[in-house]
């Protein structure tokens, strides 16, 4: 669905350019979810609530594995995130997770992982608010 071979991880900082970039990253494309649900709002809410419930656990584990430098476990976590991100259409964050998953397996790219993982976690936290707003819209 998101066929990008080489993806340059964004560097998130507080300057306006990067804040705009971050905002772009956080726009979900809910087309897939809506096609899947076929108008079943309860189903959409179930999906969004599952996202809201499970992503904080991913963030905790990612932070833990990064601290412990457990690259294999970290790679697995990035992989697990991809289903969720793809279903809610967070395309850019999906691509980040995809790149980080592979970088964890390459000793030459671990510094990049160390640098970019906190940014990914920051974005994931933002997506939780977005998911919550989508739930509110449907209730």
């Amino acid at each position, binding site marked *: 669905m998101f066929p990008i071979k080489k993806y340059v991880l964004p560097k998130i900082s507080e300057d306006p350019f990067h804040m705009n970039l971050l905002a772009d990253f956080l726009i979900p494309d809910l087309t897939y979810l809506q096609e899947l649900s076929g108008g079943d709002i309860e189903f959409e809410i179930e999906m969004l609530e599952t996202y809201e419930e*499970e992503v904080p656990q991913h963030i905790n584990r990612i932070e833990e594995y990064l601290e412990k430098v457990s690259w294999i476990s970290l790679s697995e976590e990035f992989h697990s995130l991809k289903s969720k991100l793809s279903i809610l259409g967070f395309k850019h964050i999906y691509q980040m997770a995809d790149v980080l998953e592979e970088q964890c397996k390459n000793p030459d790219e671990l510094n990049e992982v160390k640098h970019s993982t906190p940014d990914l976690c920051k974005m994931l936290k933002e997506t939780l608010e977005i998911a919550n707003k989508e739930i509110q819209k449907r209730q």
Partner: protein
Amino acid sequence: MKCIIVDDEKMARLAIRKHCEKVNYLEVIGEFENAMEALETLDKESVDLMFLDIHLPEISGIDLVKSYSHLPMIIFSTHHKDFALEAFEYDVVDYLLKPINFPRFLKAVQKAKNQHEATPSPGLASQEIFIKVDNRLVKLSLNDILWVEAKGDYVLFKTDSKGHIVHSTLKNILTKLPDEQFAKVHRSYIVNLGKIVDIEDSTLVIRDKVIPISRANKENLMGKLNMI
């Protein structure tokens, strides 16, 4: 067709279940987070089709297909297109890339349906057996039989729920059971191959029961197992 969904991601399972609801010939009878839970159900239930994630904890989807011979039709799902070639080596029906869109899903399940219809449905005789217990004929599903044990002039059919004593010989019983599913492992035992959980040099285990393997029957047994 009865199907199960095996994926460690709840959202992925929900997505596949939703697709299944839109296809009138599919009935989801179970959803599982890992391969071991799915295997327990496959032991007990008749399942036609399994949606199997490749990336699973402990046993991957590919390892499961490599290690077990009595599996239903498989449709793999994954985020990795790199696995596609390897996946097709295992005679699976199809391979779906996540997130799975409905037209592609429909194409895959239609393929499974065609295969299902092309396969002659096993008749009653090949799935079940009637045994004479006292003056009654009792129907046993072959999948429910754990082992058959010689008891003098009688044999014991052991299932999870009970044991049935029948006046017969092990030799006679062996001719009535499908060769690909059962094996004689000792002069006193026939076992259901799908129920074996562990094999050592001269013993095997089904549930908590340790069953001896005689030297004469070992080669026959090993030849029937799907081994790596």
